[in-house]
């Protein structure tokens, strides 16, 4: 065993212990003593800790109605779910393995765990399994925080996924469907009158023939911005709304609010395609919300007065530190950076 290997093993043991549920002051002191023994110890520990934290990103693979809590009712499948065959993410390169894994693990595995927990989990997996077999073409695509990805579909359409986005696609001979489960995407839809292109998100539905538009889902609200052509938006049982170029629709259940963007406004809204955020005199509060979609490190405006400051300009969406520095140098705000949060206030 090489020396590095040995130190790595010890560092990993410390990290695993620290990650557990029985961490005590005495053990913390022992860890600190071990870290202080040599720089090699410290850097090995830092390195593993960073990797372990990065692995938190895996949580985006959690199935939409995940059994994080065992309280999943046995008769779970709702009408909304069953109308979304791709939910089980059959061909998905990422989460299909997770589903497979759950199945493998459940079938022969050591099912010694509490049966109450198992019941909830089984209900979920059976539900997934059925839908998995029913329609195997729903394909999952996901981006993590701060990531952006371009997706070329079989029909020639192109999708750009913004930060923290999860969607599924199903392109068949007679229809094209996309389920936007979370996040934001820009659609450049190839013209094909024989095969409507439908975007489903919660109880909203967007129908298009061939056009460019952007959709952002935030809970049960949906924002649709049309860059080119026309789309039809319907929410729940409400009558469909026809949207044309530069229309900006905010749909909440049963209500669609419509505004019209200027050419510059349209541009500004689409800057995320280049990884930029462009603000035109919006409040710092609103700007922080935007940045927080793109970064693990969250921007926290700690007093209301600072939150009302108006911000304009173009920024790198992933560079929240740079933005925070600007708040300090440009606005004289008090900025305190810690591991996963940047606190901004008017005064120290």
């Amino acid at each position, binding site marked *: 065993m*090489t*020396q*590095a*290997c040995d*130190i*790595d*093993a010890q560092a*990993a*043991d410390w*990290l*695993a*212990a620290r*990650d*557990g*549920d*029985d961490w005590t002051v005495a053990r913390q002191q022992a860890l600190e003593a071990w*870290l202080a023994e*040599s*720089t*090699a110890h*410290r*850097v*090995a520990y*830092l*390195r*593993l*800790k*960073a*990797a*372990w934290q*990065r*692995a*938190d*990103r*895996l*949580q*985006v*693979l*959690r199935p939409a109605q*995940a*059994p*994080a809590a065992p309280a999943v009712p046995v008769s779970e499948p709702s009408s909304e779910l069953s109308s979304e065959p791709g939910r089980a993410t059959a061909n998905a*390169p*990422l989460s299909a*393995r*997770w589903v497979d*894994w759950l199945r493998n*693990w459940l079938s022969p595995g*050591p*099912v*010694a*765990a*509490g049966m109450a*927990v198992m019941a909830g989990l089984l209900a979920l997996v059976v539900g997934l399994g059925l839908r998995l077999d029913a329609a195997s073409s729903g394909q999952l695509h*996901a*981006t*993590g925080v701060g*990531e952006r*990805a371009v997706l070329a579909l079989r029909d020639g359409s192109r999708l750009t996924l913004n930060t923290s986005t999860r969607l599924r696609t199903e392109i068949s001979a007679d229809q094209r469907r996309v389920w936007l489960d979370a996040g934001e995407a820009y659609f450049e839809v190839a013209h094909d009158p024989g095969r409507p292109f439908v975007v489903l998100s919660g109880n909203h539905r967007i129908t298009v023939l061939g056009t460019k538009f952007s959709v952002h889902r935030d809970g049960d609200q949906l924002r649709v911005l049309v860059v080119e052509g026309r789309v039809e938006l319907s929410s729940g049982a409400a009558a469909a709304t026809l949207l044309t170029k530069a229309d900006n629709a905010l749909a909440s259940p049963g209500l669609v609010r419509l505004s019209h963007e200027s050419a510059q406004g349209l541009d500004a809204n689409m800057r995320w395609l280049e990884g930029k955020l462009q603000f035109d005199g919006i409040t710092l509060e609103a700007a922080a919300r935007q940045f927080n979609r793109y970064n693990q490190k969250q921007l926290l405006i700690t007093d209301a007065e600072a939150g009302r400051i108006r911000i304009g300009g173009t920024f790198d969406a992933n560079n929240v530190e740079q933005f925070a520095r600007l708040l300090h140098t440009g606005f004289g705000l008090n900025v305190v950076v810690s*591991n996963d949060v940047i606190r901004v206030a008017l005064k120290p």
Partner: protein
Amino acid sequence: MTDEELGRWFVDQVLRVEPQLMRFLRRNWRESDEVDDLRQEVYARAFDHCRRSLPESPLAFVLSVAKHLLIDRARRKQIVSIETYADIEALEPTVDELSPERHQSARSELQLLQLALDALPERCRQVVALRKIEGLSQREVAARLGITEDTVERQVSKGVRALAKALADGGTAISAEQAQASAANRRQL
């Protein structure tokens, strides 16, 4: 700066370029089983240096620390042929190593993690998946799998090392092989 602050800076700025460092070490050092040792030594030296002053460009700094370490090691080996020595004097980072984006964009972080997770041994993978995808605590993982917390802890220890290695090697495994081949070629010239 306290050790804790320095540690955070180190993670953000220095550990971030581990793929480039590993590529550099593999390209310039023949004994591939010594590369992990070298990596650790580079980090220890770099950290101690950073206690005194922070470098402007972490990537150039790390590669320069690595270069000096390789020279030291080669000298100590005392079996240095003229050609190896010449080779080591020419240890300048290539454009490839100095451009982080090119390789990081090749595979997204999520894909890297997923591949690393899939490569873990079965039990270890179950534990890491429940801990990181489901967000269960170690105790909850133990209950779910019907194993002891000690076992979970051991699997976490194993898993974190494999993940760290995969993240560092990720997407560069092929280019590392190519680099070794090209380093070997250069030596034969």
